[in-house]
């Protein structure tokens, strides 16, 4: 699997982020991307940012995930990725 990066603006600074995963959902008609700048939160955990994007336009414009069910789906996907990574 290739490694990709995106650059975002965070607190006025350019921050390079590693793309961690992507997936689609036919229910929402959107695709999702998870990425990280490897920053560590106050609780000592690494931050994973997730955003939605238009599957046709690609990463052109990221959208926030505001729906709880969508967020739950993202968490499920992450859990699934985690599980598969451990099993592989």
């Amino acid at each position, binding site marked *: 699997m290739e490694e990709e990066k995106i650059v975002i603006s965070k607190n006025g600074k350019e921050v390079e982020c590693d793309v961690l995963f992507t997936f689609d959902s036919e229910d929402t008609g959107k695709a999702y991307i998870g990425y990280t700048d490897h920053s560590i939160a106050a609780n*000592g955990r*690494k931050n994973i940012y997730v955003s939605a994007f238009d599957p046709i336009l690609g990463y052109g414009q990221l959208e926030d995930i505001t729906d709880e069910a969508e967020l739950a789906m993202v968490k499920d996907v992450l859990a699934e*990725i*985690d599980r598969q990574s451990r099993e592989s």
Partner: protein
Amino acid sequence: MASYYEQVQEAIRANEKELAHLKEELRGLRSVEKDTPRENFQRQHAQILYYIDQEQNRLASNQALLDNYHAARDGIAELRVSRDNEELDKLRELLASERDPQIRREISEELEAKEREHAERIEALETTVQTSMAGLTDELAEELRQSFLSEDKAKEEAKEEVQAEVEESTTENPASADGETEQVDGKKDDVAEQNTNNAVGPEENQGAEEAQTEERTEEIHDVHQITMQQLFDRANQELEAAELALQESIARFQEIFNEERTRQENEGPFGTEEELDNFRSEYMRRKIEENERFEAARDRVARARRQLERLEEIRDYTASLEEESRSYGVTTEVYEKIKKAVSKKEVLSAIYEQRGLGEVSRRTKAGKEQADRITEEIVANIIEQLKTAGIQTSAATQGNVTQNGVVNVNQNGGININIIDTINIIYGTDIPVKGGPSRTITMTEEEKENVQTTQKSRVKVKVVPHNGNEQEGKTPGKAPEDMPKVKTRGQINAEMERISAKLAEKDEALSAARDALSKAEEDKAEASVIDSRRKAVEKAEREYNEQLDRLRSKQEEYVAVTADGKYDAVGTEKKMKLINGEEYIADEHSIPGDITTLRVAGGKDAGRPAFTDASAKKEGQIDKKSFEKLLNEKYGPVPKDDKPGNDTPSDEDGTTGDNPDTPSKEDGTYRLRGDQIIQDEPIRPKKDEDDKKKEEPKVKTQVHVEPQVLYGPPPFEPPKEVKIPEDPNKKNPGGGTGSGNGDGPGKGEEPGTGTKVHVEPQVLYGPPPVEKPQVIEEPEKKTPKRGLMTIMEELTDGLGLKAKDGKRYKASNIKVFKGFKEELSSGNYLYNIVHLVPAIIKLPFNLVRKAVGKIMLRAESKRDIAELKKRLDGLSEEDLMTIYTEYRGNKVLQERYPTILNALLEERMQKFALGKVTEINGELEQRYSAAFAAMHQINAIDEELASEGLTPERRKELQDARAAVISGQAANIATIRSRYIEANNWLSGGLHGFSEDMKAATTKLSLVGKRFAKDHDLNPDLVKRQGALERAEMQAIADGNDEMALRVFVENERLLSENTEIKGSVFGRRSTGEKYYSPLVEQLDYRDDPFVRDLFTTIAVSSAAISTIQSIKAARDQAAIIAENNRRMAANNQTMQQVNQMGQDIAGKRGTMMEGMESQGMQDTLTSANEIERAVLDKTDWGLGTSAYRTADNAGHAYYTTFFDSTKQAYENIAQQYAAGQISQAQAMQMMADLGKQTHQTFSAINTECLNILKPYAQTHPQFDLTGVQGAMEYLQANPSAVEAMNQAMVDVTNAGDVLASMQLQQLIPLTTLPANIRTVIINGAATAALASNINNSMGAKKHTYGNAVTDMVDEYSATQAAQAEQRGNSSSK
């Protein structure tokens, strides 16, 4: 004078120059090799090579020296900077000021990690510096050190200057002025004293020197005191901080235990083992995590203690040195250096050798004393020599001391010693010392006062509190003994069964022992035998009683918990749902605005993470097995009784060892024996021996019962199916019904095994039927009913249904990037999920999608779901009834089947229930008909009976007929009422459906509620009338008064009907009256609701438009779209224009297409004519002019002329209708397509017929090549619907063009900008709309907008009655 560093640099340059010279020499020598004698050449060559080698070594050495110097210099500089870590200071300040335990814990963790990291870095730097310093010469090392000291001094001076300037600026202060005066005076005194000293003689000078030495010693002593004090202070602080961290960790441990205990008490037992495992895993993880912190804090405390101990050693050593140095009259510094150097074994060895004392040995007491004595002697000797040689024994004389590590007497009589400043090396300044003098620190008076001569650790190590189980100084260990056990209901049930079964065994053993004793007594056996058997009985009784106690206590526990509503009670679902709920909300630990962590939503118990394996992994990165393994390693194996599902009953008592959980169930327990469930006799507690004899049967009976749930509500009994109308007034001749008379199944017998009675269908009205003798059948062997689990097993067997199959949102096409995968695989990963909209600066264009990915369910899942549907459709009525009655409420939660199974089951059950309702409605309709027909007949009979002149025979005949008609009506009406209730219950779907209906009607928030809710005030009169009628009807039914029952029933129905007014409204047609008469049970129907219809239409069109626009986007040039990202609205406008244009283009071609269709139709007729012509010729063997040809040709012409005319006429009719505005262009096109279809079908038929003629003709006339004609005709025959499909496609495309052409961006923007979930709902709604539309169409237009055959009947009756009343009124008025 050049510095050592510069000297080294100069030496390197000289080395290089020399090397270059030597190499030049070598080249010169080689150039004259031929002319040089061989021996000379070889000797000179070897010499030059030797010199080159030597010079290269020197160069390498000097370069290494320089490199070490640079490395040491850089390392020291970095070390000095690194020691001051502002980040750590801030964290410490933060920790000191923070009160929140949670935040304190987090800060503490972070601080520990940073400190560790910092300490490692410092250690690495120190190692580097020390290594580099060791590689320097003494001079170079000292020079390096001095350079940093000079730098410090310069900084200090600069600082003092600044301070002095500040002080000068405050000269107005009188106190300051006085101080300055004193200072000036003091300086003067110093100068005078100095002058005095300079003037004294040699003796006095020596005395002054000694005084200076003593003063210097005191000074150094003070310096050491201060340094030690600082070190002690620092170590004490560290110890206090470490112990605080330790105490906090212990407090957190206690919090965890308390929380676990509370939750176990409040929430346990859990519904499933999975929940229990997750619960335990969660707390295991937390304990392990806390244990790591605990151990880290404990190590920290130990380190701090060791530090203090070491400091105390140094302090003692230093004190000893000071005392000894005083005795020699030298500074401590000098004395220490001399002593350490002398103490070296090689020094002593040299001395021993000189004196012939043999080898140095300290292994024996004598040897040690000798070594100490010699050492002291040498030290004294050295100091004496130093003093004799006039060398000052002060720190300022260090230039005379070299560092070769060995003390010896040099050629000049001087002494070379190795000097190590222990204090400075170990705990000294941040600059490593190599043979340099100590820094001089002058204490102030205040500092001197504060110096403590005997420093000791002020920290009293606190006794570490523990949770009760662990050993002192060990890990916290497992939970306290009083921690309540937490188990699942299934586990408790299983335990109770085991204990109960064990009790039965004890009972058997007791009986056997008693029997043996009785037998021995009867046989008058020996006393010892009887005594032995009596003891055996006593033992058996004791064991029985113990086991019984276990049962009792278990029962008490069980009953207590059940009374609290913890088992199987309504409301427990919520808690169980909470544990494994799928809905998450942000918790209080979330970073406001963006971070969410797993949290369970809803309910008072929210506030803790969901206990799923997934979350456990997320939180702890460790699964259950790993947790257990880790725990086993840390705390030893988990006791078996703690493991769910592993409770191995003790052979002795059937319990799980330490947990005497004992159920007691007065009505006996159940055991599995083979395929049967055996119910044991009730076990009674024994009161005394007599009671026991009375109550306990010697032989235990076993009663076979139906399999049933051990605890919980009684098993569901399916309602008896009624296939024929019942007459409760008719009794079954020949038998009772059930257990009352002994014929039916009695208590304890299997239901259904009794006599089965078949009753012939009863005629509802008319003369009573002649009763036929009953046919009594032999009891049939009943096949056991299939249980719910069996049905579920068969339904799901082999299907890979996934939990997400039925979820609202499904993910697919998951791609994981390499780095992330590896990170997760490492298993050491904790994360937060943050959702945000960042400002994108740079994008990976190669990841841009080129089209919408196929986001579909896996084909496998689809197949499984289809198979599941098929199986559901194939379920028998009995199975469906089992599911309908048993798979509800808690059962659904307990079994946790995939959502898709539940969804499909619901769909199937709806169908099943509606079938039931339809069946009952059919019966109700018949019964209504019977009632109203009877009423009509009675009225007619009464009318005739009222007339005069009736013969007695006729009157009798009429009266008999009336009695026959009215007979059985009370029963009929009673059945109508009960069956109506039954159907209504079916439809409402039980409690849930009922509450949903109520909610809809109450809140009016749903469409159903709006449609059917009433806005009328209560009409007391109407209620009273209804009440009176109901009471009368029920009384009549109870009395068996058929006529009264019928009249009241009809009157009641009329009342309801007359108060129902069906009118159209904005919510569709509904009753605006006070009642909504619905004699048959119907689903609330909103298909004709204009609001809903419009809504669906809008949604369907809009969602279709969205799909279209997305498709068009996908087809466009991708790069162009990306370039337009920043102008999305503009892009949308442009896209919309394209859509409109495309739609116009497509719709604009409608005329062309219609022309094409018409041409195609006409072409078909023409081609038909040609083919007929050809067939006629072929058939007549091209015999033009023959009679056969003429006949056939005429027939053919007539046929196709008619065909052509009719087709042409049809097209003209369509055109006329369109021209007259009767139909739209789209409709006209559709009609043309239909006509074209007919035409083409006709043509295809002709084609087939003619082909049959062509084929034999072609075979018999090979001279003509007819393959082209035949091939074309055969193609047409093989593809009869191609033209039809083409025509229909044209219709569809142009219709779509209409939509696209009229599409407005404004219509789409609101939808595209809607939140994803709402948009999804709307699009899903479109699918529902389409489904509803299809259903509606397939059902055809409803005959009635309201009501049915029964309401019509009631209306008709009411109208008749009203007309008759009016007629009677008119008659009477006349």
